[in-house]
């Protein structure tokens, strides 16, 4: 495998307010990386920034390194919109959260889909239409030729998201950025679309950056997960490691806040006895606004493990000294990288 996307020190600010702080991301070809975090953690902003889709004033995107497929997307240390523009579509494509707003209401599905095919596959005439029909079939849509002549408002939410996926596939991207692609859909439809994305990823070997606030969804599609909080990556680990031994207090909080997946004891031994087993735990407080970040570790006001040094310095992302298999008894777990002065190292109880 070779590196497809390399990001070092990505910063995004709106006017003078920084919303993404020094993010590092590396994505191999064909790899799937999930980015998880609450609303406002900067996950969608980072991905839009990579695609060059933020309105450039007021947004400002800077990085130390930003290379895609071996080509730098920077001019100086600013994002080069021209260079990103060249990568869009065939290089990287994006699926949006709300398919109802992501499809142009005044044009038929076929109009846009075939425009993408014409641009990236240089097909004309019947071959063009055949290709469009095949793409719609590939995303599991019934009567594709009928859908080609339909307008977005004539389709259901799930069908709209499938056509949006077909449009991105038409460009044959090597990186697919999916920004909460199932959040706006009904639960059953979301499951189908998720399965479709996982299948397509396996078949085509496209690398994927999957953004979600839902750990469960991410675990079904991704091999590696980065957890974001207040514009920083606070923990990054292979999915197995993250699920067996989440180390950042925030990550543990996310697991505890998920219904029926982990026990409340995951928050740490100090809290165990105060809670009913299987109780749903919310993380106290809320995500700080980017303009008023707490000093030091941004999570410390909400953290049960916080000590005095947490509000003095910002912790950096470091590989954990203790190999996780020592904690969980599982072999072959790769260590996580955590940005925390007091990572939670006790083994969470196994078996829900």
């Amino acid at each position, binding site marked *: 495998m070779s590196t497809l996307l390399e990001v070092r020190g990505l910063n995004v600010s709106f006017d003078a307010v920084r919303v993404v702080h020094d993010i590092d991301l590396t994505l191999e070809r064909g790899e799937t990386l999930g980015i998880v975090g609450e609303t406002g953690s900067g996950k969608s902003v980072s991905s839009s920034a990579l695609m060059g889709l933020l309105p450039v004033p007021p947004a400002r995107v800077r990085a130390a390194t930003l290379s895609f497929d071996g080509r730098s997307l920077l001019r100086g240390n600013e994002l080069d919109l021209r260079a990103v523009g060249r990568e869009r*579509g*065939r290089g990287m494509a*994006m699926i*949006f959260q709300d398919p109802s707003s*992501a499809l142009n209401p*005044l044009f038929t599905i076929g109009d846009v889909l075939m425009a993408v095919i014409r*641009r990236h596959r240089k097909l004309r005439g019947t071959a063009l239409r055949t290709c469009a029909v095949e793409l719609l079939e590939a995303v599991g849509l019934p009567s594709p030729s009928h859908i080609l002549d339909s307008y977005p*408002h004539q389709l259901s939410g799930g069908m709209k998201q499938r056509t949006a996926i077909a449009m*991105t596939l038409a*460009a044959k991207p090597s990186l697919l950025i999916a920004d909460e692609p199932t959040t706006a859909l009904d639960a059953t439809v979301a499951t189908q679309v998720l399965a479709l994305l996982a299948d397509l990823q396996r078949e085509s070997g496209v690398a994927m950056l999957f953004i979600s606030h839902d750990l469960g969804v991410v675990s079904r599609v991704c091999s590696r997960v980065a957890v974001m909080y207040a514009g920083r990556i606070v923990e990054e680990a292979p999915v197995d490691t993250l699920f067996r031994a989440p180390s950042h207090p925030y990550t543990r909080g996310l697991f505890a806040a998920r219904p029926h997946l982990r026990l409340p004891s995951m928050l740490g031994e100090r809290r165990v006895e105060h809670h009913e087993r299987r109780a749903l735990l919310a993380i106290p407080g809320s995500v700080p606004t980017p303009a008023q970040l707490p000093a030091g570790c941004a999570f410390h006001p909400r953290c049960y493990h916080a000590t005095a040094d947490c509000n003095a310095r910002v912790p950096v992302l470091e590989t954990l000294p203790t190999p996780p298999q020592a904690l969980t008894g599982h072999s072959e777990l790769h260590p996580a990288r955590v940005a925390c002065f007091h990572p939670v190292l006790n083994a969470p109880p196994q078996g829900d």
Partner: protein
Amino acid sequence: MAAMPKAPRVSAQWRNVGRIVARRLGLSVFLLIGITTMTFVLSHVVPGDPVATMLGDRGTPREIARMRSQLGLDRPLPLQYASYLWNLAHLRLGTSIRTRRPVLKDLADYFPATLELSTCALLLSLALGIPLGIASALRRDRPLDHAARLFSLGGVSMPVFWLALVLLALCYGRWDILPAGGRLSDFTLPPPHVTGLLLVDSLLANDWVAFRDAAWHLIAPSICLGYLTTATLARQVRAQMLEVLNQDYIRMARGLGLSEPVVILKYALKNAMLPVITVIGLSYGSLLSGAVLTETIFSWPGIGRYAVGSSISLDFPALMGVTLLIAVLYGVVNLCVDLLYLVLDPRIRDGAAREIE
């Protein structure tokens, strides 16, 4: 699995379109009835006796009475109204008191000049306002945008008569590059009358001298009349474009690697123009009816000047004719706008979005 698409069948769609058009036409009928009643009432309650004005100092009371009964002005109002409607239905608009010609003939003579001028002004503002609005939105808050907004501010706030006088003073008075007024120079032979639109008639007659002369005469009044509309359009297009460029479907189109001209001029512009079409329709309506000042200053023999002349001499049949014509024009333009929505917006075609009221 997803069900069959909910797309209405083609026949159902056409039935829907037919229903909307029929309803829209039905509304126009009511509009017409309302307008005719209004014009009739207004012109018959204003003080002033048209017959006295007509006969002037020479009118003895007897002559005035004779004239009144000749014109039917001595009959009770409901009867006058009924016969007015009856004549209207047969396209008899009455005889102008001032020109002593059938009003319909007068309108046919004066209206083409206004139509030609207003259409040129509208085309000018479309050609300038839309690109200006797009460029302004794309270069938001940069020098070009500021310049365009200043230009628009001028257009919305500068009085037409002042702009007209400045244009005349400079282009005719100082540099002598444009004519002082009128539709043709004195020494140019008008082309044979077909439509009354000089540009069209001269083209039909293959008379390039007349065409050039007519176009030359149209420049200053078109600029004058079209500036406000250009400014309004530029502002509207800019605002709509900024809104549309922020939409997910535009970010999606860009994210799919479609070229910027295609994204802007095809996918964004169509969405942005949707609300602007209404503005264009209204502007055209007001251009057709509101050219009075421009026509007066450029001695343009159009409907605006005819209306002014008629109101000075209390020429009720003529005034009613003009009012009716303008109302009908507004109706027609609005109808066209509504039909255009049916063509452009599939949601309205399907009855999925709010219907046009």
